[in-house]
């Protein structure tokens, strides 16, 4: 009776993991930006870094359903390890990046055991607390970290031994964009794979996920650890491209801003972080150059309007996702 060979099912399934036409376009534009708009190289670099950072949060929050307000912990770890490595060991950026990733990954692995159980709120607070403790630690060990003054004297060597970090920030922008793209492709692979689907299953219904044999605990550990590594990479990029690390990399508002960006762009579809980072950073830059004192008001207004009007309608007026999701508000008792 069933049509032969599962062709229909397979095509339907693979539809989700196909590249859409706009995706390469987006990346081309991103890579052209530092060339075409030279004066924006620095902000492109900054956006690429937070986009990578947001991508990391999307993996745990959007795909696995684990909220975290302490992602800055891994970001900071990456930043400090890369900076320290450059200062005391070797100025090579790629090696430093690897060091940052490894450091964050290792800590992420151990931290993943604290987020296994509990409600959203407890996870938020545990992760937040962990980041703040790291912050205080970095403050206390000021001989190594430079304490509140920050870690200075980080001099980076050229990327691949060829490209020096220039004042305009173009090398930095390309370096960060490339790292972002590499990790994005990795994350994309993971998200569309059976492994990624098991993460979504855990997010949707943990009880059922267990009941179909998904090892929930170890999946969360893997997802969280990978995400920590990505956050570490973002932190390392920041330290390397600014040649500086200071305590604020661990600060609460890093994690909070990150969460805002991701939610602005939408969780669970990978581009959310990228889009959110672009929108948030540009809005911030634009508004604060108009009114350096009161720009937070307008940013706040933007967020409020965004939520009230609906992100979908404001930012994603297109519909490549097969079935258009109903606005959740419309379900339920708005009877006459």
């Amino acid at each position: 009776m069933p049509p032969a060979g599962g062709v229909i099912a397979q095509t339907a399934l693979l539809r989700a993991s196909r590249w859409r036409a706009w995706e390469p376009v987006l990346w081309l534009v991103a890579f052209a930006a530092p060339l075409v708009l030279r004066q924006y190289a620095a902000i492109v670099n900054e956006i690429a870094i937070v986009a990578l950072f947001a991508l990391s949060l999307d993996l745990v929050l959007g795909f696995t359903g684990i909220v975290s307000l302490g992602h800055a912990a891994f970001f900071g770890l990456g930043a400090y390890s890369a900076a320290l490595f450059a200062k005391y060991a070797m100025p090579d950026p790629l090696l430093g990046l690897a060091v940052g990733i490894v450091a964050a990954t290792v800590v992420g692995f151990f931290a993943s055991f604290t987020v296994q159980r509990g409600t959203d709120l407890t996870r938020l607070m545990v992760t937040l607390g962990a980041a703040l403790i790291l912050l205080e630690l970095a403050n206390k060990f000021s001989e190594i970290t430079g304490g509140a003054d920050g870690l200075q004297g980080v001099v980076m060597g050229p990327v691949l031994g060829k490209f020096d970090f220039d004042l305009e920030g173009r090398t930095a922008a390309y370096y960060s964009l490339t790292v972002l793209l590499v990790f994005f492709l990795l994350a994309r692979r993971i998200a569309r794979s059976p492994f990624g689907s098991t993460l979504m299953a855990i997010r949707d219904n943990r009880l059922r996920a267990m009941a179909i044999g998904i090892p929930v605990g170890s999946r969360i550990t893997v997802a969280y650890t990978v995400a920590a590594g990505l956050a570490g990479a973002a932190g390392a990029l920041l330290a390397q491209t600014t040649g500086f690390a200071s305590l604020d990399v661990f600060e609460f508002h890093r994690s909070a801003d990150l969460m805002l960006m991701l939610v602005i762009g939408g969780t669970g579809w990978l581009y959310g972080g990228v889009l959110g980072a672009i929108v948030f950073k540009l809005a911030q830059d634009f508004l604060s150059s108009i009114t350096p004192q009161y720009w937070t008001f307008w940013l706040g207004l933007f967020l409020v309007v965004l939520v009230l009007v609906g992100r979908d309608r404001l930012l994603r007026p297109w519909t490549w996702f097969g079935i258009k999701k109903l606005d959740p508000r419309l379900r339920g008792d708005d009877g006459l």
Partner: protein
Amino acid sequence: MAELLKVDNLSAGYGEAVVLQGVSFALDEGATLALLGRNGTGKTTLLNTLAGATRQHAGSISLAGNALHKLPSHQRAAAGIGWVPQERNIFKSLTVHENLTAVARPGKWTPDGVYAMFPRLAERKTNLGTQLSGGEQQMLAVGRALVLNPRLLLLDEPLEGLAPIIVDELLKAIRRITRDEGLSAIIVEQHPQAILAISDRAVVLDRGTVVHSGTARELRDDPALVDRLLGVAR
């Protein structure tokens, strides 16, 4: 007998999606209506619409002369609607007793009356809603609708998950309540036989419209018709 409920040309659904289209029927006071139909034909949607929990697009509902469709959901309970949702929807952070008292309205049915009807619930008075067995939740959902002291009970698959002995008792109770207390009821069921036996009227839905409407006896006596209306399309 006076007419209690009149549904006229009702269209309703979720968001922009229209599920029910041009549904009309009427029900007398003290009468029981069996609402039948295949899976996904809109039975639940119809009950939810009567309770005010969907988006209504057109048509009118009147309960004892009141224009129900003009009332917001929460005032419909006061107007006499008692609703047992399909997925029970027990308030999970309330105890069994609080589930009853939170919504109770003055009248003949009190929490104690419910406990008398379902002794099982009395034993579980201080359990939270989620700490009940499936059947207990079902009993509680029925009890919760009764303490509203409604004029019209909306029962969405009320027998599902109940032990046979409880099913018997509940059916008897429904019959008694409708007979003796003049309450009306609309019952959705997957089992036509059980429910047609105690119903006065029957409405069959298909794809959101009424495809049959008549007395319950008519359907009970005509298995072929039942099969045609409800049999699985193969």
